[in-house]
C-alpha cells in the first residue's frame, strides 16, 4: 500500500492491507490483534507506524518521492494470517469497479493471470 502520509483513513487501510483497524485492534476475519493505544483516532484515522509495527508490516520509505510503502503483515510467518478471505475491489477493463464481497453465498475460484 502506497502512502504519502503515515496517517490514513481506516477504510483505505483496510482496502490496501486487508486489515480492519477498530478500537479493539486490527482484525482480519475473526483474528483480531490488540493495538497500542492511540493507533486509531476518533475520526477513524489510523496511525500507521504503531499498527505496522504490531502486525510486522515493513514500512519502506522513499524520501525523494515522499512516499511510504506498507508491506503485508508477517504475523504468523505465513502469507495468509487467517483463512478469512480478504475482500478486494478492482476495476474491469472499462474501469467499472467490482468487489468480491458481492459474491458471498457462492463458491469462488479467484485466478491470477497476466499478459506477461
Amino acid at each position, binding site marked *: 500500500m502506497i502512502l504519502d502520509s503515515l496517517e490514513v483513513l481506516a477504510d483505505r487501510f483496510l482496502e490496501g492491507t486487508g486489515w480492519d483497524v477498530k478500537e479493539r485492534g486490527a482484525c482480519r476475519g475473526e483474528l483480531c490483534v490488540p493495538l497500542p493505544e492511540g493507533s486509531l483516532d476518533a475520526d477513524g484515522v489510523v496511525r500507521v507506524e504503531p499498527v505496522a509495527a504490531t502486525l510486522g508490516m515493513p514500512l519502506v520509505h522513499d524520501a525523494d518521492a515522499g512516499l511510504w*510503502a506498507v508491506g503485508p503483515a*508477517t504475523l504468523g510467518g505465513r502469507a495468509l494470517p487467517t*483463512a478469512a478471505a480478504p475482500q478486494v475491489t478492482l476495476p*474491469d*477493463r472499462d474501469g467499472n469497479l467490482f468487489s468480491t464481497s458481492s459474491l458471498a453465498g457462492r463458491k469462488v475460484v*479467484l*485466478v*491470477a*493471470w497476466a499478459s506477461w
Partner: protein
Amino acid sequence: MWQALREELHPAGVEVVTVALDSGGAEAAAKWIDRAAPRHPSLIDESHLTAELFGFVNVPSAVWIDETQTLVRPAHAAHVRRSSFEDAEVPEGLGRITEMLREVKKIRRTDPEVYVAAVRDWVQRGADSPYALAPDEVVERSRPRPPGHAEAAACFELGRWLWDAGRRQEAVAWFRQAHRLQPDNWAYKRQAWSLATTAPGEDTDLIQGPTDLYEGNWLDDVRAAGAENYYEPFD
C-alpha cells in the same frame, strides 16, 4: 481459458473471478480479456494487491473461497488446459528462443485433468471434498512470509508507483531490491522485466531477455532456480 469451466459450474453456485496482475493496466490486459470475452468478473490489478493479499508469486495461480468467504485452498498453480508448449517440438536455430522453449518444456505444471477434477469435486462435495482444506491447514499451507518477502512487496509497490509516474530509473532500483529480497517471486521479476523490454504500443515481450537494468532475465533465472521449481505443485 476459464470460460468453459465457469459456464459448466456456474449453475452449481460457482463464480470464477479472473484478475490480471498487470501494472500496464487495461492497455496491457484488455486485448486478452476481449479475446476471451468472459462472462465472469475479469478484473485488472495494477498494483498486484491480490498477490500480496493471497500470496501469489507466479501466474496462473488461484485460490478457492467458499460460500462463507473463507479460503479453503491457498495460492497454488492452476492450469485448466494443457500448454501448447508442452507438446510442441522445440525449433532449432532460434538462439535464445530455442533455449527458452527447452526450459519451458521442463516446467512442471499442474495436470489440467487432475486440477479440473479437483475443482468439480469441491463444487459437488463442499467441505467433504478432500481438496477443501480446514482453516488451520489453509494458513499452514500458504507460503512462508518472512520479513524479507514482506519488504519485497513494499519495494515492488514503490517501483510500480514510480514506473507509472514515469520515474523509471528510480522504479528500477526498487524493482531490483524486490527481486533480491524474494528471488522466487516470478511475478515481481516477469512484470518488471516485461515493463522494461516492451516498447510502448507493442505486444508484451514474453522473452524478457537480458538488459542493463536488471541482474537477471527469464532464461538465466529459470535455469538457476530449476524449471521444475517454477510452479508449486497442486497436491
